[in-house]
């Protein structure tokens, strides 16, 4: 038995259909109205973790998944009207009542936190796309978006701290798998600010419509277009910086592996400033340096890593498979 209070109604039509209830210890329960009772409505409740509640609100998981795959322990049953603020006692049950599961695909709209800075941005697509293109293009967009989001400092306080600490933790050595770094970087972007796909139309030309931070998308568009310009200063700066680190044998080294002299630090700082200027990131040089714990070697590597991903997107634009990248819808 448990004592629960209805926190809010998540979905209703004539009657509350899905509710969120809370126990006095702070645990959340998802409640499903499955039929009429003698007086009120019969509900069953399944405990739900806060992290899963966020996924439910973001429509990343459906109610069926919460009730079946994420459920642990017993279900709680009660008869109630489902009004917000009402308190009630439940009866525990190991089994769900018969025919009481929601159908698959029951996503609850209307509860995702809204981003104040996201816009609809469109990429036109053309030519022949293979499945691998979708994966590769999506990975590049996500990586560039994560990086751009961090570099522009677009997140709020807590998220920014987490994102910054990731850069500090990363050793920035060559050959190190960056997959987890980018994955973690993306996961630390607040859910409402993550880049989402709103529409895909495959035609000639077709389009992919994204919902994403407008400033980050605009920044990526400008950088990508800059890379594809004739005699692009960004490409030249990348070659110069990469070549210099290669010649010094520092691509696979971090600042803990080598002792940088005052002259080295000066040269690396100059290289960083030149690269940032060429990439159109001159306003973010100090921020990038702080992300790298004021180590100019790591800072240059951060900028180079960002460039490589932007180059990947730029190649899609250069071949014509992606056009007019991240324009307003």
């Amino acid at each position: 038995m448990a004592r629960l209070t209805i926190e809010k109604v998540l979905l209703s039509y004539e009657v509350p259909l899905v509710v969120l209830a809370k126990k006095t210890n702070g645990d959340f329960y998802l409640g499903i109205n499955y039929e009429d009772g003698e007086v009120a409505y019969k509900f069953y409740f399944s405990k739900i973790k806060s992290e899963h509640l966020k996924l439910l609100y973001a429509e990343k998981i459906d109610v069926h998944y919460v009730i079946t795959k994420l459920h642990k322990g017993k279900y709680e049953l009660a008869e109630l009207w489902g009004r917000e603020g009402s308190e009630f006692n439940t009866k525990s049950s190991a089994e769900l009542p018969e025919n009481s599961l929601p159908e698959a695909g029951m996503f609850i709209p209307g509860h995702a936190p809204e981003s104040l800075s996201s816009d609809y941005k469109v990429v036109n697509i053309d030519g022949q796309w293979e499945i691998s293109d979708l994966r590769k293009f999506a990975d590049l967009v996500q990586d560039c978006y994560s990086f751009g989001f961090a570099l522009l400092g677009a997140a709020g306080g807590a998220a920014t701290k987490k994102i910054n600490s990731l850069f500090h933790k990363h050793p920035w050595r060559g050959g190190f798998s960056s997959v987890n770094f980018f994955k973690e970087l993306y996961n630390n972007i607040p859910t409402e600010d993550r880049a989402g796909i709103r529409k895909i139309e495959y035609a000639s030309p077709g389009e992919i419509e994204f919902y994403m931070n407008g400033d980050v998308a605009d920044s990526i568009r400008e950088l990508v277009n800059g890379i594809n310009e004739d005699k692009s200063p960004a490409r030249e700066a990348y070659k110069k910086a990469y070549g210099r680190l290669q010649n010094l044998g520092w691509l696979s080294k971090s600042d803990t592996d080598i002792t940088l002299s005052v002259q080295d630090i000066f040269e690396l700082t100059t290289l960083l400033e030149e690269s940032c200027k060429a990439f159109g990131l001159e306003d973010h040089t100090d921020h990038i340096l702080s992300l790298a714990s004021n180590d100019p070697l790591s800072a240059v590597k951060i900028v180079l890593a960002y460039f490589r991903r932007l180059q990947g997107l730029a190649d899609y634009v250069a071949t014509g498979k992606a056009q007019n990248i991240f324009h307003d819808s």
Partner: protein
Amino acid sequence: MMTDTNGLDFLEPLPESCPPTAVVAPTESTLWRLVKTNAVTARDFDSQRERLPNREYPDECMARSVSLVTSLAACRAAIKSPRMARMKFSHAVPVPYDPSYGVWHKDQPTHVNWWPYISVDPLSIAGVVEQLNG
């Protein structure tokens, strides 16, 4: 616009102090009503009280409102709930939000209660029916 709630100015008789005076107007221009076929009739806009007069309701005023949702996504979610799945709703009909059609109260992010004025024929203002499972 009629604001008197004496139970005579609305499509269905309403109890005292109904509709409520403190209402939240929807921000959506179109709202949706669930229906079972693409042939909509006036009965599809009956309130719960009209349809099931002998049932007990926690709030008589709400029971006499026409329930609407704010999007087709909300319609699709609602019909997948175990309670609603048994009712076999398969379509939704759009209702344009217009303050001159009655009193509207958005009580949840995706749900609106509508008390139509007696001068309004819901069937005549409803739009083209959409299939939900297609």
